């Protein structure tokens, strides 16, 4: 059985609504004026589909260090041991997050006891059971979570992110 986690609140305000989309498209188009007709710039970045692990590799509450979408973007895969709204896998309990704090870029550390990711820089805390919601902290965004796909073999693929990663102005460099 494969599970595809639902995107979190994808329907609400997005950067690419309204004039933001126009600006992004237009800017790409200005480089080669005719390119707009023949090869429209995609509205979103192209996310790679990266195999991060297999469900067999995951044990409840034992974080697996990964990176996505490239080796410079550290993250974590977690099997929470309980079904969560954004969970993937047969038990709906597998989630993946960036582990770079979206406030100032410090590395987050996982606390098994309460399923949180914690920042030693300025004490921000994110709840892995609640889609990476910032429990308390300085970041102006909740924690970027991976869009996960799990194939028939149990291989876990990351295929997208729902927030901008710290330290890059495009999630895919």
């Amino acid at each position, binding site marked *: 059985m494969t599970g595809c986690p639902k*995107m*979190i*609140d*994808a329907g*609400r*305000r*997005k*950067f*690419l609504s*309204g*004039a*933001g989309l126009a*600006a992004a498209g*237009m*800017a790409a188009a*200005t480089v080669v004026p005719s390119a707009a007709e023949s090869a429209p710039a995609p509205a*979103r970045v192209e*996310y790679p589909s990266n195999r991060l692990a297999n469900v067999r590799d995951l044990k409840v509450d034992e974080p697996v260090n990964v990176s996505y979408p490239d080796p410079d973007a550290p993250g974590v895969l977690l099997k929470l041991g309980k079904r969560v*709204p*954004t969970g993937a896998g047969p038990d709906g309990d597998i989630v993946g997050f960036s582990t*770079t704090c*979206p406030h*100032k*870029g*410090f590395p987050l*550390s996982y606390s098994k*006891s309460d399923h*949180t990711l*914690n*920042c*030693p*820089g*300025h*004490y921000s*805390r994110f*709840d892995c*059971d*609640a*889609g*990476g*919601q910032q*429990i308390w*902290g*300085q970041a*102006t*965004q*909740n*924690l970027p*979570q991976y869009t996960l796909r799990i194939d028939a073999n149990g291989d876990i693929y990351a295929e997208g*992110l*729902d*927030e*901008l990663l*710290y*330290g*890059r*102005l*495009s*999630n895919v*460099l």
Partner: protein
Amino acid sequence: MAYKRQTDRLPIIPKDAKEFNVTCHYCIVGCGYKAYSWPVNKQGGAAADQNKFGVDLGKQQPANTAAWYSPSMYNIVRQNGEDVHIVIKPDKDCEVNSGLGSVRGARMAEMSYSRARNTELQRLTDPMVWRYGQMQPTSWDDALDLVARVTVAVINDMGEDGLFVSAFDHGGAGGGYENTWGTGKLYFGAMKVKNIRIHNRPAYNSEVHATRDMGVGELNNCYEDAELADTIVAVGTNALETQTNYFLNHWVPNLRGTSMDKKRAEFGSEPVAAARIIIVDPRRTVTVNACEVEAGKDRVMHLAINSGTDLALFNAWLTYIDEKGLTDKAFIAASTKDLDKALAANKTSLEEAAQITGLTVDQIRQSAEWIAQPKAGGARRRTMFAYEKGLIWGNDNYRTNGALVNVALATGNIGRPGGGCVRMGGHQEGYSRPSDAHVGRPAAYVDQLLIEGKGGVHHIWGCDHYKTTLNALKFKQAYKKRTDMVKDAMSAVPYGDRNATINAIVGAIKNGGLFAVDVDIIPTKIGQACHVWLPAATSGEANLTSMNGERRMRLTERYMDPPGQAMADCLIAARIANHMERVLREQGKTQQADAFKGFDWKTEEDAFMDGYAKHEKGGEFVTYARLKVMGTNGFQEPAVDFKDGKIVGTKRLYADGKFGGKDGKATFMETKWRGLQAPGKEAEKNKWPFLINNGRTNIVWQNAYLDQDNEFVMDRFPYPFIQMNPQDMAELNVKQGDLVEIYNDNGSTQAVVYPTPTAKRKQTFMLFAYPTGVQGNVVSAGVNEFIIPNYKQTWGGIRKIADAPEAVRDLTFKSEEYSRG
């Protein structure tokens, strides 16, 4: 569920983007930011020569980089009539925040008015008047004519005491030197309005009368003193959440021991060590936790006193420090008077204080020693005292404030590096007004007078009593009734007949009605009752000057257009004055009309030069052009010179040992303990089971006037929270997220339950001033002798209303406390 923006890239700031100086317009700290703007059809590139940072943005940037901005720091706004991209990001070169952004300030761009990206569309764009049974847009001239005619009619009938005013007195958004001067010149210059109150309290008074009466201005040190102190005494201030980057950038280095080099450079051979901190707060806050994380538990003393008993603790400190001979005798002799009187009146033993505060004798003795015990070699300990709303809005404000200043004076800690006795502050400051002496002391209890039916017209400037006053439920009931009378009268007049409208309004006022004019940037809660809304510009939409908690003055440059027809408050005040002058001349009242001359300002800079530059200490050295050059670091007021192209400021007040008294001395104050001072508080405490302590939380600025339209914030807290001990929850049979009613004889309100194991039994803490549950509804009308409200000492009952509403069902309710794990 956790709100996500689905943003996977942002436009890059091009090399030639415009750059503006910005001071965050929210809290007192005033972090430095830079705004960058560029045309909407352009963008920079990842290559180092194509972006503002000159770095290769094709690579991952490291922690603390200046070359990154979050989606909340980006928007598309109007600038000189054109859409532009804007990024407002923290400035690494500002000494206040060194590039740190708080969860509030780092959302300034996202919290700007943008029709292109649908942010803050709640902003008022046009003057609005009550017409056809609802608020309708109109022209400035139409709205101002109505305001002027009704105001003049009321003054003709009742005198200037019939005009009630609620007005901000602070800096930052909804304030600043320009706008306090504009409103001040109108109400204290052209008129002598007495029935006036300030944005967050029901009278026109100081929150810190006592320290001023003692000759000690309340913002007397600099932020660097928090890096230099041996001991920090924090009273009723939850600085990590309410003065975030002051705490992170200046307190934490001292707690970590990373400001030692600075100490050695400043103090030479004097022994130095990482700071100790004493925190006086009935509640364990995230500030207490962070201090323990950084300094270790043995250097943090959290004095969790019985709510409202600070005064007894301070008197015991003073008594003990004197008895042990730990006072600064040279300083006391040279710079103060009346210590003997204060000692006699305030004498409190450790045992007495322990009994009142609930602390142990050892805790009080040890904390006194942390404050005053000399260092090795006999050097005086440098102790910084900081206080805020826990004291200011707590029991017996005046005496408690005085009692803390007594301790700071007795230990010689004002005017010296590593010292100070300061309020931490809420908003920034930016006060410049003609004398308010005619208001008197105690000042009129304006909210109470409004409840009692006094006054005929009410001008409101950037205040929302419905969310931010005490006794709020009764206030709203009375206010709605009175303003409805005028609405009904207006609705009965055929449109177009201005004279008939004025007559109908005046008639309704004579019957107890009230005509209300609301000047604000958004439709407020109190605005629902008003008859005219006048749209104001906010910080960044007009040039604005303010100072922060260490008197650091900066100019925030105009980087975008105000929405629609909105104008800076100072210009709105000027236009009201112009219209009042015209109406008075029409009526042949030449002398009265002449009082409204001098409001011919065209820009906010005109108001600044008329007000601050002419009237404030050192104002002659300050201009917009000079402030622009001073950038995000500005200078510390008062200015004392202009030299080598720079304004020269004042790092610390009273460094020469001369204080504000007529004889240059600071005066100790007699501050005897008298229990819960405000009328009715003791009975309330005895009657109801739960303390309803209250205050702010990190993510929300003030009463959420902008946050209420921000999905990131409203997703986190759709309703105010009430922190509660899990055992209390079990007894009440409520679960996390359940909606509960908080009630007492003053009124009732609602909140969702946030389980908090560190909360003491029967001691709750509710988010203050939130639009979806107003804590002020249950705060009694009881005030101190100078009409300062007492929000903190509130007691009530709690009952379950419903299971967790849908909006909170999937929210996190985990502990806010960070741990190293």
